[in-house]
């Protein structure tokens, strides 16, 4: 690999990393502001204009706080757990294309850190790792609430990962590839070629599963403040505590990006050929990607302040008895459709 | 009894025989209190503290008991008074029938408040408790006589007799 190629990749990594972290900050601010508006409140409005510097202030506060490690915890794991949670969350974004390719320095640069041909698999694998962070945090805390939170999280993950994977399978069937770029290309063209219209059931299952994956309300049983006093992060403080939340928001961003990529044509702008517009087309595609993502991020917050938390048994029933059969049924439908199409 | 260091003026009856006679009328010394007070008042004109002390000594009781008796009866005067005493009944029937107006009338006429004596020592005005003539209210006792069912005019006429 030449130096330029290496530099380009390095820049892409840095840009994606920085963008994700900035996204986390924006999300923290947005979450508080939006929730306040939905409750007829004002929300943070003191730090900076309209309170936009609030997340920075929060970050500084977290850094200044005493980093407490309780006496009876399993120290190495206790310290490692937040990192195990945060790193995969940040890594997931690597395979997601966030714009059409661009011509610079005489070569075509894809707006994507790595164009992996098993991108979907990569994403599913990494998001599964993140649950280890929660389970280990819960277990190492040596606290019954934390342990329960961790256990719930792992059980939740198994039941929803499955449905989510199966929902994605129907998309893969349509695209015929595990590469995310192929999936986007498959959706290009008319407005109705987006997978949301072709696979509404898969979208529904995927969306619900994503909420469970990111431990967001109404599926945040691993935190469950009212029952579990904070769940897996009960014993955490200072920056380690903050890392859990950074991971949560990073996960949300990734999940939103994935939803957009799989069901909303990714960076695709309908009825437009971005490639023919040059740099402007690329910018347009990135903007389109960001807008779509923003909607789903808003939906995350919106849902959180609308629905109450599920009971644990309801969660399990929904996962195993409703979503899994539905996903299987969807695969069957898709496969049947494709077979019929192939047969002519 | 106790004095504040100063020797008090002593009172003696001018007529010791009369005193003896009064005592002889009663089996109990204390019963002589009232006649002795009358005797002393006729001699002095009013009941002074020294009178009370000496009568208390005579009847063998505390001065406070004698004072209790003196203050009970309106015909005993504890202060020097004018030649004529106007006693206006203040109790219910008389009060309802205009005794207060009579008092105000005298006050206006002679510029004396109840309990005071005119400058020329002619009249002393007094408000008293029930004189026992409620049927003919209002009642005024001039010296020792009752004047009943008085109106302002009648009262003026009455006062004119004594001026």
């Amino acid at each position: 690999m030449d130096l330029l190629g290496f530099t380009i990749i390095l820049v892409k990594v840095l840009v994606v990393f920085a963008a994700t972290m900035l996204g986390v900050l924006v999300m923290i601010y947005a979450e508080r502001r939006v929730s306040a508006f939905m409750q007829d409140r004002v929300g943070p409005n003191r730090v900076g204009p309209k309170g936009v510097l609030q997340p920075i202030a929060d970050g500084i506060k977290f850094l200044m706080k005493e980093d407490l490690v309780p006496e009876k915890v399993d120290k190495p794991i206790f310290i490692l757990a937040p990192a195990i949670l945060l790193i995969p969350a940040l890594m997931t974004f690597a395979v997601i294309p966030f714009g059409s390719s661009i011509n610079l320095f005489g070569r075509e640069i894809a707006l994507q850190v790595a164009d992996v041909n098993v991108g979907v698999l990569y994403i599913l694998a990494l998001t599964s790792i993140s649950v280890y962070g929660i389970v280990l945090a819960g277990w190492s805390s040596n606290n019954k609430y934390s342990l329960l939170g961790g256990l719930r999280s792992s059980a939740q993950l198994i039941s929803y990962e499955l449905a989510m994977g199966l929902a994605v399978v129907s998309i893969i069937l349509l695209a015929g590839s595990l590469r995310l770029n192929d999936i986007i290309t498959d959706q290009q063209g008319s407005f109705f070629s987006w997978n949301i219209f072709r696979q509404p059931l898969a979208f529904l299952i995927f969306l619900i599963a994503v909420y469970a994956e990111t431990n967001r309300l109404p599926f945040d049983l691993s935190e469950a403040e009212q029952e579990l006093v904070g769940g897996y992060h009960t014993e955490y403080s200072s920056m380690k505590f903050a890392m859990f939340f950074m991971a949560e928001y990073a996960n949300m961003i990734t999940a939103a990006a994935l939803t957009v990529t799989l069901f909303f044509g990714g960076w695709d702008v309908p009825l437009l050929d971005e490639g023919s517009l040059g740099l402007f087309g690329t910018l347009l595609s990135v903007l389109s990607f960001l807008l779509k993502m923003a909607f789903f991020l808003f939906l995350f917050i919106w849902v959180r302040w609308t629905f109450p938390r599920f009971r644990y048994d309801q969660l399990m029933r929904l996962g195993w008895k409703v979503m899994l059969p539905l996903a299987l049924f969807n695969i069957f439908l898709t496969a049947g459709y494709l077979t019929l199409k192939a047969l002519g | 009894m106790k004095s504040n260091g100063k020797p008090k003026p002593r009172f003696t009856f001018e007529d010791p025989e009369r005193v003896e006679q009064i005592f002889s009328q009663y089996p109990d010394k204390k019963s002589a209190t009232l006649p002795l007070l009358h005797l002393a008042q006729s001699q002095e004109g009013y009941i002074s503290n020294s009178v009370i002390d000496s009568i208390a000594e005579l009847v063998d009781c505390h001065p406070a008991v004698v004072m209790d008796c003196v203050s009970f009866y309106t015909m005993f005067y504890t202060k020097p008074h004018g030649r004529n005493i106007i006693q206006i009944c203040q109790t219910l029937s008389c009060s309802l029938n205009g005794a207060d107006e009579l008092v105000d009338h005298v006050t206006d006429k002679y510029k004396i408040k109840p309990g005071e004596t005119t400058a020329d020592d002619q009249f002393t005005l007094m408000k008293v408790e029930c004189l026992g003539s409620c049927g003919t209210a209002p009642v005024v006792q001039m010296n020792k006589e009752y004047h009943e069912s008085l109106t302002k005019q009648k009262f003026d006429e009455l006062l004119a007799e004594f001026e």
Partner: protein
Amino acid sequence: MATIVKSYEPTFWDKLYLPALMRGLIVTFRHFFRKNVTIQYPDQKHIPPEGYRGLHRLNKYPEGRIKCVACEMCSAACPADCIHIIPGPSPWDGGKERYPVRFDIDLLRCIFCGFCEMACPEEAIELTEIYDFSDYTRDDLVIDKEGLLEVYDLTKDQNYYTKKNLSKASSVNTSIDT
């Protein structure tokens, strides 16, 4: 006799839950655009309604004499046992012959029920609209007679929070040496 109440039979759409979820989302979304009800507290003062039971005060007669006669009815009525009075003969001529030499209210114990106000035969103790009287120590939250009389001066015009000059108002001092 038991009456049988027919339970509600959910329809197909009810069982699907999605319309209900949508309605829920619409409700919160509408609120997103509503006018917010927040009062920016330290900048903007909340004006309590008539009859609000806040900090106590001891009333005075127009000539400046304290109304309280230290009858201790308030402390007898107090369910939190937070009023402590030491009575004494009043230094003024005429009128009531008794007044409180000391009159302490432990604001940390007080539950602001207003029984003292109701028990008072002289209309001397009253609860005012003042609600912001926090302090740094427990001792400073025992308000004494002078403090209570000062509260009267601050609140007698019924405009503690409405008057423009808040600088004086914000200096309610419960920490006068007790």
